[in-house]
Each structure stands twice: as C-alpha cells, then as structure tokens.
C-alpha cells in the first residue's frame, strides 16, 4: 500500500455503556452519522461500507438508515476483533483502487446487554465447518471462553519467562489509570492498584477478573477517503502510512496450541513485519501504540512481537510505568478496552486519530506516528497512522 494514498478523515462513536437501550442498528447508524459530521461529509458522499463478519448490521441496512444511497464497495472481515484494523485496510484498498471514493468502517453491538462473548456458547462446536471442527478439540473439555483460551497461552508465558501475575497486573493498572482521566471511558475516575488486581477473583487461572476487559454496548465508525480528499475536509487527516493483515502458520481461532512455541503471537509478527516494511519506520518512531487489550497477557506478547522489546523482556518493559503516559512507550492513552470500552478494537483506532489530531483526552506531545493493532490470538491486522 503506498504511503499516503488514504487517510482517516472522520471518527464517530456512541456513548459506551453496559445497556444502550437501543438496537444495534441504531447504534451503527448513530456512529456512522457522527463520523460523517466529524469529517464534514454527508451520507450522499459515501459509496463504500466495511464492517466485521460478526457485526449484526448489514451494510445495506446501515446505508438505508443513514441515507447513504448507492454503494460501489462493501466488504466484511472475519475473525472477531482481528478485523478491526483490517476494516480500514480494506477501505484504503478500495479508495486506492478506485472501487470507492469514501468508505465508512463501523462496528456496533450490545455486547453487554445482548449476547455476551464471555459466556459459554453451546453452539461453538456445533457444525462440522472448519471452525466447528477446530473448536471441537477444545470446547467439549469445557475450554470454551475467550478468557480460558488466552489463559492457556498466559500460563505457558509465565512458565517460560519466569513472569508473574503482577506483570499482567501492571497492564491493567496502566489502562485503568489512563481511563481515569478520559471522560468517555466507562472506568473514568476509577483507577485501580496492583493490590486490587491481585485480590480480584480468579476467572480462569492465571487470569484474574482485572486481567479481562469489560463488556460494552456501543458503536464506533471511521471515515476513510483519499489523503488528498481528506486534506480538503474539516479535520486534519490521519494518513494511513501502513496497513496489514496477518495469519500465522498453523493458525487457529484463539487456540493455536499446536505450534512449536506457545509464548508468542506469530500472526502479530506477520502484521508487524508488514507495517515496518511498508512504512519504513521502526519501533522508536512510534510515539504511542494502541495495543489490543481484551486480556492483559497479550499486551506483553505484542510488545515483543512488534519489536518494542525482546522476547521475554516485556515484564521488564512494563515496570516503572513503562507503558503509561510518561513512559517509554505510552500504550492506549484512552484506557484501552480494559478501561475505556470494548468495541472490538475500533475505539482504539479512533483514539489513534485523536492523538494525531491533538484532540485526545490524554493528549501526548509530538505525536507523528501511532501504531494500532487488532484482536490477538486470532488472524489479525494493524495500522500505522501518521500526521499529514
């Protein structure tokens, strides 16, 4: 992808809550309209829509509700939260190839008041699709929640690298500290201590409750158009410097336990290599990283896979506020999904845009490049967004 062909020109969101009281379609429509207002565009300017395979709102339904007319591009990305940055990648490809001029990416759900991903779902191994068969090696044994799937990796990480639950806890503490000063965050003004993390109940050992992100109702939308077009619009653009998708060898959904090593995220390594190659940038060029944090352990793994530190060095990297606002690499200044909201990674992309614009609640200084990642433990995606 050429470096400056597309940009994010608008961001929009609903409030983040535990009970929106509205339909998922209404949440999607509200976020899309809010993103278009932010960009200074009207629904009639949109000719493409992209969302997650898991989203319950079809592109045509969102188009009908918002007054978007004809569509020339629509696409969906699979693999849960791994889709987040990839929606922007698909939109950027559509813009670069002329399939569409202005594409809106969206994700909307009542993930707390509706169907909760954290609860056991008896249908996971229901049908002999490739995914149903994959799940069938795990689900009959009661290994059937996202926390449990991640905990299996986390246990191995602790064992191999001599890390402790407190190392995971430092991620939670940092995210809640950031959220505490972000008025849009669910956990606004509610920081936690490491002691509270350690005292929180077990969900799936070695994960405590405070290692697990919240469940949220809400929606986020992002407007993608050419960088040239974006420069003529209301907001300063967040240029898509690099965009990548990645699946690793022997990839599974959340349960890639059969590879040589279980302490890494090879799919994130694929994404990272592509981001660095495309952008010509290196980890030291990144002012802040938005790392997918549905569970704390994979934040450590991502720091290693993306080259911010070496293998097994993340616990050291985290100490003394290493990922906090004044640390060596501030991670998730908005509070992440642990602190702000769990909108399947899309709220993190919006935060990256705000950091580049200079409008974030916890605004960092001198932000030129922001790296963003999507869902971990699944085929995933990433972005580098830049000022310009």
């Amino acid at each position: 992808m050429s470096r400056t062909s597309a940009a994010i020109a608008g961001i929009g969101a609903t409030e983040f809550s535990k009970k929106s009281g509205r339909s998922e379609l209404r949440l999607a429509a509200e976020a899309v309209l809010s993103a278009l207002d932010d960009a200074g565009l009207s629904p009639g300017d949109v000719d493409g829509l992209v969302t997650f395979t898991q989203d319950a709102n079809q592109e045509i339904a969102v188009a009908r509700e918002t007054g978007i007319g004809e569509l020339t591009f629509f696409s969906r990305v699979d693999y849960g939260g791994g889709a987040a940055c990839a929606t922007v990648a698909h939109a950027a490809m559509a813009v670069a190839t002329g399939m569409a001029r202005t594409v809106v990416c969206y994700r909307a759900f009542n993930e707390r008041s509706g169907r909760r991903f954290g609860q056991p779902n008896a249908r996971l191994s229901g049908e002999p699709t490739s995914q149903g068969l994959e799940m069938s090696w795990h689900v009959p044994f009661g290994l059937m929640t996202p926390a449990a799937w991640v905990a299996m990796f986390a246990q191995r990480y602790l064992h191999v690298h001599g890390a402790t639950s407190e190392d995971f806890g430092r991620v939670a503490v940092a995210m809640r500290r950031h959220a505490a000063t972000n008025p849009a965050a669910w956990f606004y003004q509610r920081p936690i201590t490491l002691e509270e993390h350690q005292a929180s109940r077990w969900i799936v050992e070695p994960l405590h409750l405070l290692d697990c992100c919240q469940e949220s109702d809400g929606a986020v939308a992002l407007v993608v158009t050419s960088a040239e077009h974006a420069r003529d619009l209301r907001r300063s653009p967040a240029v898509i410097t690099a965009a990548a998708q990645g699946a690793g060898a022997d990839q599974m959904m959340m349960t890639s336990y059969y590879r040589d090593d279980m302490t890494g995220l090879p799919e994130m390594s694929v994404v990272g290599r592509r981001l660095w190659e495309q952008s010509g940038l290196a980890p030291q060029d990144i002012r802040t990283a938005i790392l997918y944090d549905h569970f704390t352990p994979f934040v450590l793994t991502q720091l290693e896979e993306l080259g911010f530190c070496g293998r097994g060095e993340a616990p050291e990297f985290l100490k003394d506020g290493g990922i906090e606002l004044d640390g060596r690499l501030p991670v998730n200044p908005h509070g992440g999904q642990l602190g702000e909201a769990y909108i399947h990674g899309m709220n993190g992309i919006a935060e990256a845009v705000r950091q580049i614009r200079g409008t974030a609640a916890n605004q960092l200084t001198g932000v030129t490049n922001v790296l963003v990642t999507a869902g971990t433990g699944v085929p995933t995606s990433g972005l580098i967004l830049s000022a310009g």
Partner: protein
Amino acid sequence: MSGRDPRPATSVPAVAASPVSDDELRELAGKQAALGEVRGAPAPDPVNEPMIRHWLAAMGDANPAYLDKGLAPPAMAQVWTMQAPRPGARDRSPVDDLLAALDAGGYTGVVATNCEQTYHRYARLGERLTPATRFTDLAGPKRTALGVGYFATWNVTWYGDGDEPVAEMLFRVLKFRPREGTREDRPPYPLQPAVNQDTAFFWEGAKSGELRIQTCADCGRLRHPPGALCPRCRSSRLTYTVASGLGTLYSYVVHHHPPVPGRETPFVVGVVELPEGVRIVGNVVDCPPGQVEIGMALRVTYRPMDDRLVLPMWAPEEP
C-alpha cells in the same frame, strides 16, 4: 465465537441443510389453503351391503338397524373413498403436496393428533360419495416430545347424491423430524464435538479406549488435531497410530468463571505433549487444581460424558 444462543422452546431455527426450508413450507401451506375445497374422485363403489357387513363385524358392532334400514354407519365415511394403494392411481388432494414437502424438509415422522367427525345424515345404500378436501392450517415449527415438527390440519367433507354433505372430518397430524441422530433436538450439554470424515476415527477410538493420532500412510507424519490431507506430502491416505497414552503437561488453565453447564468449577484443562510428538487438549483429573504443574507426567484415562461421548482425559502418572 460466532453463533447465537438457543432460542425459546416455542420457536426453532430451520435446519440449514433442509432441501425445503421453513419459509418454503409456509409459502406452500398458504397456497394450498388458498385453493379452498378441492373435489376428489367419487368413490369407486357405491355404498353397499357387503362392506357394511364386513365393517360391522370388524368393529364388533351388532346393531342390526343399519342393514335393516339400508343405512351405513356414519363412522364409515372414510371407508367409501379410501384409495387403493396403487402407485400413480392417486387422486391428489391439496394435502398430499404439503405432506410430501414436509417429508422433503426432513419432517418424516408422522402421528395423528386430532380427528373430529361431524355427521349430517346417514349415507344410504346405492349412494356414491365424493370427498372434498380443504387444507386449513400449518403451524410450526414447534418443539414437541417427539421432536421438532409442524401440525398440519385439513377438513374433508363427503358429499352424497344431490350434492349434500353427509359427513365432515377435521384431521390434524404432527409431522416431525425424528430425534434419532439429530443434534438439533438434544440438550446442548455435555457438549458434543462436531465430527466429519477426517475426525471420526479419533472419537471412535476414545469410545474403545484408544488414543488415536492421525498418521500419514505415505510419509509417516503424525498430526493432531487431524486434518484432511497430509500437509507435508499431500497424501490423502491417512490412517492412525494408537498412542502410548503417556504425556507431559505443557500448559494448563484452572477454570473458575463463568460456570460451564455440566461441569463443576474449578476444573482443569491442559495442553498435553505426547512422546509421539504431538500436543492434545484434555482435562486434567484426579489431581487437586493446586497440585497441577507444567511438566507433570500424565496418563490418559477415558471418561464417558453421556451415552455417546467419551473424552480422553489425563491423570497424574504414578512414578
């Protein structure tokens, strides 16, 4: 992580594989009902003494009034127009197409649930009855004790000479999807694995107390979880090796929350490394969760979950 929660018991999702969908069934039912009353072929024989006598004998009815007065028992209404079981000779009613569609949709079971007859007058000797059928309603799919099914209801009116109604009958059947072998109607827990041609050998092995690891018959590679082809040599000649049943714990979790139906918490799930060179997931049992540790020696043990499923699990190997 996709999929939806089970729906309430009164409404059941259609089975995707059905060649006839629930929507198509409803549409056909609407069409057949719109046809109104459809006349069938007149009875092959007029109301006659020999058949009345047979019927009375078969029913154990000793009332002499019928034959004395030249009248047929009203409950015989169906008898006069019952069709001979000759293929191709059937006179199709609006009901037949619908029942055939239900069969095609997998609702192959049938049981009569209602039969209400109304008699207007006695049929007389020498009179030739003509049936007319009106399809009235299709309700469902509903979850019943027999399985998921539809209630189909129709009315038949028998007309005598002079086109006046002699008898009427409301008939209702439940056409259901037999439970045997369908996942849909069984309780979801204990959770069953999805099984196909590539994986059945493993689950059959567990039932017979064997831990079977897929093995390429051409290059000898062992692989778990099993697949459709050998990724090393592309062979589709796949067989299995019966593993020693020994293993070493590679990683594990202790599940506390949320509750998993059919399991008592806390329970342990582990990734076990086999000396045969593959890893496998299973529960670690017969060991308090606090004593489970990476590197511990394990031996496979087979635990029946219900009448169909046996899971290979792992217990500490005594030194």
